[in-house]
């Protein structure tokens, strides 16, 4: 048969998902169309760049086109990546193969990333040509192109993660809102990271990319790798079977990433900046941990009980489900605010704790409004997060208006944890301490409420834990918590 060459074109070592996506992707008109249009435009631009006077304009266009293609068009190809498979029922069939949820998601992302890389490499000759025609900073241009690709693949990870949500409108809102506000897809990453800390940690991120130096390049690469891991694992959780222990890997890696960030700050003497970055990352980690359904599969708990007391300890932090997620997030908040308190100031540490309470508030609201029917807590979480952010944006800008009654408006910010940051900055110097203390106190309501809900949820899963205990220890001796 002549079939052999047709299907032996891709190596066995490549992930099957990547092979599939590439075969499909390269066959669609879209990739070819993008490639062709891109090159036509670039050829024109390169020809135009002859004269020195319009070099800046051409370079601006060049940047714009590259950004559009690498950071927006290519990542958007993942918009329905998983949703389509969910709808057509093919995800079920994928699940029944040996591919794990993680590998399915990774394949989806890797296909986009590799096509994007192909595009980036095909742009390279134009950079060289422009370098030859009119002297530009060759290394800088290539580096800029690379960073665009990197930003693009991080955005692709975010979009692939979103594509695990079936609802088209939800995905559309989340993808296009940041684009509307921020003008560029990269803003979606920053928007997300603003969530808990409320500070512009996005700024920190962009400042990394601007500053040179080998160390910061490594840091950017590391952060990008972690962000990709984070969003892909978030997506994998959504499609993994109930018995999977993804949360263990996910939370361990995330904890290690956070700790290394802090350690790096300490080693390089940039603790202040790292503290802020950690605070930005914190809210994402909390969102992940607090949106997992409580697990009621005995074998999941059995996996922990099997490992004696370290296992039982790990169960409290790493077992799937938002109840352990609450404990895990509390640990992270304690770590980060302690670090910020040490590296910056106690006030800022307190502000971070209050910001975290804002994330807990959203989680508590999600618990209130979630029904047993909706299996995934992520969509309600994101919706609440959007609503709260719109509220904060409107109320927060009110605080900036000079004629607003400062004293009262500032005090009422204690009601909403996220608002406190704005209130705190506009408060009079003498009031700040009292305001912060009151804010801390009122912010405690939310983790408190969540804790109560957690106790009930934990008890509901008790039967599963006991069954898990029995799977390991038989009927004799001891009992599950």
């Amino acid at each position, binding site marked *: *048969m002549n*079939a*052999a060459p*047709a*299907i*032996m074109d891709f190596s*066995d070592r490549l992930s*099957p*998902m990547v*092979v*599939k996506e590439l*075969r*499909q992707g390269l*066959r*669609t008109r879209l990739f070819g169309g993008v490639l062709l249009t891109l090159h036509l435009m670039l050829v024109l631009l390169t020809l135009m760049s002859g004269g020195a006077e319009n070099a800046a304009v051409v370079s601006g266009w060049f940047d714009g086109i590259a950004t559009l293609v690498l950071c927006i068009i290519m990542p958007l190809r993942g918009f329905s990546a998983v949703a389509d*498979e969910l709808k*057509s*029922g*093919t995800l*079920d*069939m*994928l*699940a*029944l*193969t*040996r*591919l794990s949820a993680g590998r399915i998601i990774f394949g989806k992302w890797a296909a986009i990333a590799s096509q994007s890389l192909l595009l980036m490499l095909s742009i390279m000759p134009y950079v060289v040509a422009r370098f030859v025609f009119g002297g530009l900073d060759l290394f800088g241009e290539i580096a800029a192109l690379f960073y665009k690709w990197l930003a693009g693949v991080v955005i692709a990870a975010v979009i692939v993660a979103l594509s695990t949500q079936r609802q088209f409108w939800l995905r559309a809102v989340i993808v296009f809102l940041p684009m509307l506000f921020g003008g560029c897809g990269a803003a979606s990453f920053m928007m997300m990271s603003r969530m808990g800390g409320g500070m512009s940690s996005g700024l920190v991120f962009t400042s990394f990319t601007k500053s040179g130096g080998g160390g910061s390049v490594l840091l950017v690469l590391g952060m990008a790798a972690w962000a990709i891991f984070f969003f892909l694992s978030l997506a994998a959780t959504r499609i993994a*079977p*109930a*018995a999977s222990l993804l949360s263990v890997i996910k939370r361990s890696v995330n904890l290690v990433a956070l700790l290394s960030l802090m350690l790096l700050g300490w080693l390089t003497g940039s603790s202040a900046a790292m503290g802020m970055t950690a605070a930005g990352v914190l809210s994402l980690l909390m969102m992940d941990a607090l949106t997992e359904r409580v697990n009621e*599969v*005995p*074998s999941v708990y*059995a996996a922990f009980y099997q490992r004696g007391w370290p296992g039982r300890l790990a169960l409290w932090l790493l077992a799937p489900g938002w109840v352990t997620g609450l404990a895990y997030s509390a640990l992270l908040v304690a770590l980060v605010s302690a670090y910020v308190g040490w590296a910056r100031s106690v006030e800022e540490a307190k502000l971070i704790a209050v910001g975290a309470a804002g994330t807990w508030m959203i989680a508590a609201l999600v618990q209130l409004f979630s029904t047993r*029917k909706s299996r995934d807590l992520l969509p309600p979480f994101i919706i609440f997060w959007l609503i709260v952010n719109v509220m904060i944006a409107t109320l927060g800008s009110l605080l900036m208006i000079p004629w607003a009654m400062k004293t009262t408006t500032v005090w009422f910010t204690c009601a909403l944890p996220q608002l406190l940051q704005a209130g705190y900055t506009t408060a009079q110097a003498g009031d700040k301490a009292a305001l912060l203390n009151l804010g801390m106190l009122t912010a405690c309501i939310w983790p408190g409420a969540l804790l109560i809900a957690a106790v009930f949820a934990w008890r509901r899963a008790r039967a599963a834990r006991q069954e898990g205990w029995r*799977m390991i220890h038989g009927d004799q001796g001891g009992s599950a918590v």
Partner: protein
Amino acid sequence: MDRSQPAVVVEDLHRTFGNLKAVNGVSFSIDHGRVVGFVGANGAGKTTTMRIMATLDSPGSGKVSMGGHNVVHHPAKVRRLLGWMPDSFGTYEHMTVLEYLDFYARALGFKGADRLRRIQEVMDFTDLTPLADRMSNKMSKGQTQRLCLGRALLHDPQILILDEPAAGLDPKARVELKNLIRILAQEGKTILISSHILSELGEMCDSLLFIDKGRIVHHGDAESMVRGTETAGETLVNVQIAGEPAKLIEWALTAPLIKVEEETKRGARLRIQAADDATLAGVLRRMIQDGLPVLDYHREERRLEDAFIDMLGQIDKNTFKAQQPGELPQKNAEAAKL
């Protein structure tokens, strides 16, 4: 796999969607190498049960084990043993038949020449070789069906779950599908096939499971189903004679123990108040003695569909009669053994 244990055990399975009890206490077990039909009306709970068996959905309560592995605790082990064909055949855009099978073969861990060999075997078995370069989403229903069966067979699974494999196929494609299933059965695979077309399942399957409103209402082979609902002590006989059918009707009206069920073009269907062979033979002998020119005389098998509908009717009647003890065909309590 331990072949002394049943291949499939389902114990008191429940699954609710909101307030709807889609599966409501289903129990059965299937021995190795059996072909079992899973029959029920639309919305009876077939797909839901099968999805749980295939580790694609979580049971609300109850236990399901496949090849000795619990579906909740060890989904990965169950998935190795299992070939699953969903009711919606998911094919991909921009992918040929060959690439489609290649993708799943890769995903199932086949490498290099081994992969090629296995794909070739499956394509030969399902007669897809001439279609290798067709786009997988641009084929007829029967071809798509064969492709999906091929995909489900790639890893040579011991247990096959086929959800409505015959739906929408023309008679020829059905016969082909039936032949494929027969071959798979001969290879010793355990097969569960759902359908609402009973007559077909009756021929293919060793036994049938009837599900209604999330409960198993009957289990056994097709014959027992038909007999179980037969009105006791009566037999339908179809008689054809040469000449005027009126002669037969006249004769039947005067004969004892015989009622005319229906006149037909060349005779009549008679209801005879006896079930034993001797009496039936006696009736035929009398007809001939009385000078009727009998061309054809045969006992009429009740159709499976009629039997099923009758049974559902009986169940409804019985539930309506406020549960009088001992009357219901309540085989639900003890697990069906197939």
